[in-house]
């Protein structure tokens, strides 16, 4: 097959974008111990930063054509089926590249400061680079099989990094949970891939190449298409932490904070959204799946936001916030607004990375404390952290002219415009909840009186520059990244124009009712403003001894207990499973399996005991045997004659 666009010679450098972080991993594993922790950190950071430079170059070159390809080699060739190790950058992949390498590089830089004291920092940076490598492979893959390699790779790296401090059993458990829950989704994903390839093969096209799949999507029967997309979506619910497979993400907080930032902002959880956007030509033809995606996304956004209201762990609030924001992205994708979904992914990467790294800075300053009830009043001690945190909080809450405002508004407006009024309302309420819990966190951490232990308070310090510079860059991004996708009543969206070659759509854009758009925006803004004011009333003024929400009683306990989803899963799946396992181990295995094995052995032993008696060692007995045998044979032959 000829690439749709002849590959310019200079774009053989596409392969260097994922290769550099891989090289960083290899170098760090080989030489890291000799280089020392700081040098290892800089090496890893430079590898990703160089990737970012290349991505930026590709991005700038890209504006001329629709896609670059770099075929490294033919990976699988079997009959008419063929899969290449082939990288591709189109408008969508370019955006993701910038997010993964750009945010990733900042997180690497930050980690030099954050993980500098950890004795295993070299291993940490090797994993971190590997994570970026697999994510880049996922993003740049031009076929579904290669995407799956990246998909599994990020799963592996998340496992390695969540369980980075493996000596603590709780961390190992969290890593296992992330891995196992993802496996469940991946099972659906791989079934979807297999079904897609066999169904296309039935039509005579054996391919997993995205461009060819898109060209031949007409070969798929609608029922099969729905099934394929449902299975693929199952994979996305695992990776992107949607209902029902979101339980791993909050537990993933066990890993070091930069890892959380990487997982939540630049890699891993965005994979599901990216995959659906990448395969939008399949999903767009399956209205049933799209509705389900929208419903799951809306429900996830709302439930996770309510859970976040009552959490006291600073990172856990952010984790549920991520689950909730990912719900928004799926909401947009389900409504068919793939470009809005990717836009929210893009802006979310900035402010969520900023928030996580900011929380890391707070935890760092407090010597490892993560409970927000033991914080408060940190604003004068951590000025740079505070201001960047404030910006990111405003952005995620959707304050006007911040990135979150534009992207969230785009999603809500698309929902409203496309007639999803119920889900639009849910999204609106969720926006209010988001603003409330984020400002609750801001007030609890930075305002009021300090509730930290005196000796901790004495050692409070702002983080070093390697940690605060990324924060400042991300805070700037939290504002300005959204300006690319401004609504029509401001200066119009450049975003949709950029992604139009991928997702299609009308060149002029769907100009809706400007008045209605402004009206819905004002409605959203007033809900958000009310929520922020409410958060101020509850948490902002005096340092309340108890959480004002706890006066709600039972509903509060339900939220604080995270709807007991983990407990329900425990009851429904884990316990029956362990019970069956125990039965197998204690009854079935010793009784049935060992019984059969030992029984056969016992029979053999009994037979040999009997047989052994014949072996007297006495020559005369043996001779008697000979004689008897001879006589029998003689009798037999004589009888025959």
């Amino acid at each position: 097959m000829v690439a749709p666009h002849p590959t310019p010679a200079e774009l053989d450098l596409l392969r260097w974008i994922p290769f550099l972080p891989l090289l960083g991993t290899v170098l760090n594993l080989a030489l890291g111990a000799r280089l020392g922790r700081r040098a290892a950190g800089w090496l890893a950071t430079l590898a990703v930063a160089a990737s970012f430079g290349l991505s930026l170059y590709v991005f700038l070159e890209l504006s001329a054509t629709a896609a670059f390809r770099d075929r490294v080699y033919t990976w699988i060739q079997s009959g008419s089926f063929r899969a290449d190790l082939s990288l591709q950058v189109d408008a969508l992949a370019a955006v993701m590249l910038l997010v993964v390498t750009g945010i990733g590089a900042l997180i690497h830089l930050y980690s030099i400061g954050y993980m500098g004291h950890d004795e295993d920092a070299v291993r940490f940076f090797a994993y971190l680079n590997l994570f970026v490598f697999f994510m880049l492979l996922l993003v740049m893959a031009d076929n579904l099989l290669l995407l799956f390699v990246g998909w599994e790779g990020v799963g592996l790296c998340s496992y390695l990094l969540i369980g980075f401090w493996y000596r603590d059993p709780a961390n190992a458990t969290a890593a296992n949970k992330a891995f196992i829950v993802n496996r469940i989704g991946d099972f659906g994903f791989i079934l979807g891939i297999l079904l897609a390839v066999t169904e296309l093969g039935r039509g005579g096209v054996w391919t997993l190449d995205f461009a060819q799949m898109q060209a031949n999507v007409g070969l798929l029967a609608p029922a099969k298409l729905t099934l394929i997309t449902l299975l693929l979506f199952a994979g996305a619910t695992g990776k992107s932490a949607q209902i029902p497979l979101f339980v791993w993400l909050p537990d993933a907080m066990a890993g070091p904070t930069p890892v959380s930032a990487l997982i939540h902002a630049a890699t891993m959880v965005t994979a599901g959204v990216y995959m659906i956007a990448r395969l939008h030509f399949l999903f767009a033809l399956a209205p049933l799946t799209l509705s389900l995606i929208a419903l799951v996304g809306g429900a996830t956004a709302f439930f996770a936001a309510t859970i976040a209201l009552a959490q006291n762990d600073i990172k856990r609030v952010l984790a549920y916030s991520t689950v909730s924001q990912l719900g928004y992205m799926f909401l947009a994708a389900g409504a068919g607004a793939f470009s809005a979904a990717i836009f929210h992914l893009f802006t979310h990467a900035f402010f969520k990375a900023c928030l996580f790294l900011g929380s890391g800075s707070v935890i760092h300053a407090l010597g490892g404390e993560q409970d927000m009830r033991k914080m408060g009043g940190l604003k004068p001690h951590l000025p740079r952290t505070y201001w960047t945190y404030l910006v990111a909080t405003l952005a995620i809450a959707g304050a006007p002219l911040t990135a979150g405002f534009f992207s969230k508004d785009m999603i809500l407006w698309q929902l409203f415009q496309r007639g999803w009024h119920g889900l639009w309302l849910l999204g609106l309420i969720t926006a209010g909840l988001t603003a409330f819990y984020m400002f609750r966190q801001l007030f609890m951490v930075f305002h009021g009186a300090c509730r930290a232990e005196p000796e901790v308070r004495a050692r409070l310090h702002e983080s070093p520059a390697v940690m605060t510079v990324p924060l400042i860059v991300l805070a700037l991004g939290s504002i300005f990244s959204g300006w690319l996708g401004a609504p029509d009543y401001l200066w119009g969206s450049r975003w949709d124009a950029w992604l139009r070659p991928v997702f299609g759509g009308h060149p002029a854009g769907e100009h809706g009712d400007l008045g209605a758009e402004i009206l819905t925006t004002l409605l959203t803004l007033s809900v958000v403003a009310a929520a922020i004011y409410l958060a101020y009333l509850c948490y902002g003024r005096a340092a309340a001894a108890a959480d004002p929400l706890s006066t709600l009683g039972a509903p509060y306990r339900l939220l604080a207990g995270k709807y007991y989803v983990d407990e329900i899963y425990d009851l429904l799946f884990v316990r029956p499973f362990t019970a069956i396992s125990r039965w197998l181990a204690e009854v079935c295995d010793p009784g049935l399996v060992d019984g059969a094995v030992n029984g056969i052995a016992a029979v053999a032993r009994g037979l040999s005991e009997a047989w052994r008696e014949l072996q007297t060692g006495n020559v005369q007995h043996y001779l008697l045997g000979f004689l008897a045998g001879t006589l029998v044979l003689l009798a037999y032959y004589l009888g025959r004659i």
Partner: protein
Amino acid sequence: MVPLPYYLLLSAALFAIGVLGVLVRRNLIVVLMSIELMLNAVNLTFVAFARFHGSMDGQVIVFFVMAVAAAEAVVGLAIVIAVFRHRQSLDPQEMQLLKW
């Protein structure tokens, strides 16, 4: 001339006595002698058939058998003496060292 079946019957009787001796006697020397008896029974058969058929083939075989039997007796007696020196007994029932 004595008819052939008489020779054969005598030979069978001698052979049976030899077999019985090998199977039941408790003395290795007697066992060896019983083996000689069996060999001689067979020799008798050979000679009888040779005479009956007017051919010398059977008589030639007898010489071979006697030569082998003599050699066997030499080796056998040597073993018997060695066993007796070693164990002060010639009872084959006690020689069970090769039991499993």
